[in-house]
Structures are given as C-alpha cells and as structure tokens.
C-alpha cells in the first residue's frame, strides 16, 4: 500500500465550546478523487482549513505528503479552490493567473506556459484579457479552478467547485477532474450535491464532526442495499440521529 497523501488522526477541533471535529480520522490514497459529503455545518470546510494550515487542531495530527501541517512550504504542492471565487475583480483573467503563479512560486520561465495550459483546460483562453468583473458566474468559477491548477500541485483541494455552475460546465469540470486523477493527482472535493458523489472514487460521509462512512460508492450501495448515494447518506444520517438520541 502506498503512503497516504492526506492523513488525519484523532483530530479534535473546537471553536469556543462548539466541537466541530471530534476524534476525526481520515486517509486519502494517492491517485484518488475523494468526495467529502455532509450537511452544511458538519465540518467539511474545517477539514480543508486544517489541511491547508489555516486552522490548527486542538488535538490529533494532520499530515499532508507525510509532513505535519501547518507547513508553509508544503502549500506549493497543494492546489486550492475555495467556495467563493476569490478573484481580483479589477484585474484581467491573465493578471489573476500571473499573480497566483508568482505566489505559488512557479518558475518564472514556466509561468506563461502554465497560464496557457490551465486556461486551455478550463476553456478560457479567449477571455483571458478581459477584466474578471465582467465575467459570468461560470467563467469566474472556471478561472478559479484554473488558479488552483497552477503550480501543478500533486494534491487538489476543491471546496464545492460546482456551486452555481450550469450542468454543461459541471460536466466539463468533472471530466477535467477525472483526467487529472488519471495523470496521478490526488483530489479532495467537498460537495453537497449527492449525484456528484457518484462520480468520485471514494465517498466520505462527514456527519456531526465524525467520519461515519468511507468507501467506494458501489461498495456502499451494496452494504446499505440502496441504489443512490443520497439514500445511503440519509440512512447514515438518521442512524446518527438515533444514536445521539440514545445517548
């Protein structure tokens, strides 16, 4: 078995008195697309923030590429796309890409080549010299994805990449994610669109700060005798609620 790209062990994260992650264990094998699903407020974003070193856990450990997070230098190997588009709206698409390429520490000689590449991937080549304030919602989303691809990181962390995206674009984003996976990248995607969870290699169900179920979609379907991830999720969630009420 290859070493995990992401490894979180017994992670405890509290904001004040509110426990967000409780004894949370999570491993991601290289070359996989993992879908992290859970109701809003379940701690999906907190998982991502801990992996990026934006938050640190009160207990337990988080490793990325075998190194303990937070670690600033490691961030050059991680591509990150947040829930919000997070673009500089007064700059053009190209200037945004240029800026983040420099922040990522991309070799100056390779910057323009990479910009060409990532913008071709998200089909924005013709729009690169327009200001992003004039972009449509879908175009902003695509540019945001392109930025996360800069630096050719081995791990992509995408927080709800398909929110507010029309079906055609959603399909093309997923096609691209599969292609990246086939190139050997490891991808962590959060979503609350259940049919997207069918497209991942492994689905992780995060409910009330704990990892309740983790496995290939097909295996989970067999285990729960259900035909969709959505039904499985609802089952797991209701089990969790009854467990809680028994306590």
């Amino acid at each position, binding site marked *: 078995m290859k070493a995990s790209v992401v490894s979180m062990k017994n992670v405890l994260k509290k904001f004040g008195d509110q426990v967000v992650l409780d004894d949370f264990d999570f491993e991601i094998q290289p070359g996989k697309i993992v879908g992290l699903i859970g109701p809003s407020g379940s701690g999906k974003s907190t998982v991502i923030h801990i992996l990026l070193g934006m938050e640190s856990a009160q207990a337990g450990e988080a490793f990325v590429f075998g190194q303990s997070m937070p670690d600033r230098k490691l961030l050059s190997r991680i591509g990150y796309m947040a829930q*919000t588009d997070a673009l500089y709206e007064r700059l053009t698409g190209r200037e945004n890409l240029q800026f983040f390429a420099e922040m990522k520490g991309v070799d100056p000689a390779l910057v323009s080549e990479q910009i060409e590449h990532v913008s071709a991937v998200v089909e924005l080549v013709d729009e690169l010299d327009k200001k992003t304030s004039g972009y449509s919602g879908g175009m902003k989303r695509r540019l945001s994805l392109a930025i996360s691809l800069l630096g050719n990181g081995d791990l992509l962390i995408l927080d709800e990449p398909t929110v507010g995206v029309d079906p055609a674009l959603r399909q093309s984003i997923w096609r691209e994610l599969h292609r990246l996976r086939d190139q050997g990248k490891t991808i962590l995607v959060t979503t609350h669109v259940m049919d997207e969870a069918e497209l991942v290699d492994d689905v992780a169900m995060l409910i009330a700060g704990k990892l309740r179920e983790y496995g290939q979609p097909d295996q989970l379907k067999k285990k729960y005798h259900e035909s969709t991830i959505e039904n499985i999720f609802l089952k797991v969630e209701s089990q969790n609620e009854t467990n809680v009420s028994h306590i």
Partner: protein
Amino acid sequence: MRRTLAISKRVTLELLRDKRTLMLMFLAPILILILMKLVFSANTSVDVKVATVNVSDGLVQQIDKMKGVKAVKFDSKKSAENSLKNQQVDGIIQSKKTDFYVTYANTDPSKTAATKAALNSSIMVNNVTELKRTLSKIQSQLPMQASSSTTQHVKPKIHNDYVYGNSKTNFFDKMLPILMGFFVFFFVFLISGMALLNERTSGTLGRLLATPVRRSEIVFGYMLSYGFLAIFQTLLIVLFTVYGLGVEVVGNIFNIVIVNVILAFVALAFGILMSTFAKSEFQMMQFIPIIVIPQIFFSGIIPLDTMAHWVQVIAYILPLKYSGEATTAIVMNGENLWSVMSPILVLILFLIVLTALNIRGLRRYRKV
C-alpha cells in the same frame, strides 16, 4: 522578494484601475486646500454697531472713530433695548454716574470682543486727552524752559519684519504642514484598510494564504505600493501649496516627502490593523471619528502646551502629532532631517510595532 514585488504590483494595478478612488486621493486634498485658503484669507474684520445711552459726546465720538465700530446715540435704555432685540445693534453702552453698563447681544463672540476693546480703548484715549489738557494747563503756568522738552512728542513708526512668511500669513499657513500629513494619513489609512478588508471578505486573502507566501511578504507588498502612492500624493500637495497657493516652504521639500512617506507607512499599518476589527466597509468607516478625527486636534493645530496636562498625554500616542511636529519644523523653520530626528524616530517606532502586530495578526488566517 519576488512575492513582495508581485503583491505590490498587484495592489498598485488595482489602485490604478480604480479611477474614482485615485481621484479622491489626489484631487480631494487639492480641493480642500483651495477651500481652506479661501476661507482663512477672507476679510476677518468685524462690523459692530453699538447703541449708547447717556454717554458723553466726546466718548461717543471716540468709540465711533474705532475701526469697524459705529456708535449710535439713543435717548433711552428702552429704545436701545428694542434695537438690540431687533438685531439692529450689537450692544448697548449705558453710562450711570462714573460707571458703564454694557449689554452684549453676544451672538458673535468676535463682535463682543470688538465692542469691549472699543469701549476700553476709547475710555483710555479719552482719559489721555483729559490728561493732556490738564498737563498743558499746568505747563502754561510753568516757566518756558521746562516745557520745551515735553512738548515734542513724535509718534514712533513701527517697522515689521517676518522670519516666516509675510504680513498676510494667517492660520491657514500654520495648519498647512499638519494638513499635508493629515491627508496622507487619512487616505492611506482608509483605502488600505478597505483594500485588506476586501481581500478578507472576498476570499482572496484565504486563497493568498493557501500559497507558500510568507505573512510578512503580504504586509511588505502592501507597504511598497502605498509608499509610492504617498510619495506622489505628498509631492502633489506640496507642489500645489507652494506654486498654486503661494505658501512659503522654508525647508527642503524632499524632507517633507520623507516624513510623509514614513507617516503613510504608519497609516497603512494602522489601517490594516484596524481592518481586522471591521466586518464590513461601513464598520471601517466607523473608525474615522475614533481614530482619524481626534488626531487633528492633537496634531499641533491648536498649541498643545495650552491644553490640560492629562489631555496632552493623549497626543503622545497619536502619530499625527509627530509628523505635524516634524513637518512644521521643516516648512516654517527650514530644519533639516537631523534636527527633526526625534519625532521621526517615534514614527518609525510606531511603524515597527504596528507592522509586527500585522504580521502576527495574519496568523489568525493561517497558523504558519
């Protein structure tokens, strides 16, 4: 270094694309300076009309001779009071026996002061005239040789010489060195604070911190671009006041620029720090009356040594006091940078502390 430059390039580019904010930074100070110049060089003489009741003719004439004061005789206190009520006169002077009773409208303190002054000096002049008359009466009864030395009284002529400016120098000139710093502080504080707030709320700060950028590189990148902005703003303000408004700058203009750039760095660091306590742009605006406005009062526009001691203490924690001190010395006394080193050093101390706090403060958004 590469990242610092890239951040400053990006911040500058964003600023240059925001034409309105740019106009605000460069044209608003000019507009305000023009207005202030007009307001403060306006004719400051007052016109006062005083009612006199039962006052001797000599004194009434004497009051009337005073500059800007007109005395009108009234027959009774009652009719004078009526005029006062209808705002036809600004005061009533009533003589009873040897004393004077004065009623002021007091709606304009400068008129009240003018009336008081006019009455006092008129009484004095009157007394002097009386005295002279008595003296000359005595003289005429004295032997001739004794009188020769006292009869000659030549009124001395006063020759004025100004170390700074000329006879037209007024309060505006005193305020100008401080205002220059204030404009730099105000705009840099507000715009940089808003910019960083915007980075936070739009999520770009999060995305930035998800790259291997150092926290210090972000702060230094901002400093670099706002430093340049402050240089241009200061140059524009200084050149405009010197050549457009004709204000005299005794010292070296570049020394002023240096002081103002350091002040801009302080304002930037202050703005970034305060932006972390604001949730929205409106909340950022709320810092103006708390942090920006009080600095004007303690910046030296009103002499600090006239204030109560505990109030003076407040001034020592306000950066504008130090920049005001340094620029005033450069503009009015032509001091060089060495002689204004102590306020500059205090500003640099402010800068180091605030910058360290900012770099530290970004830890809230990334733990490393």
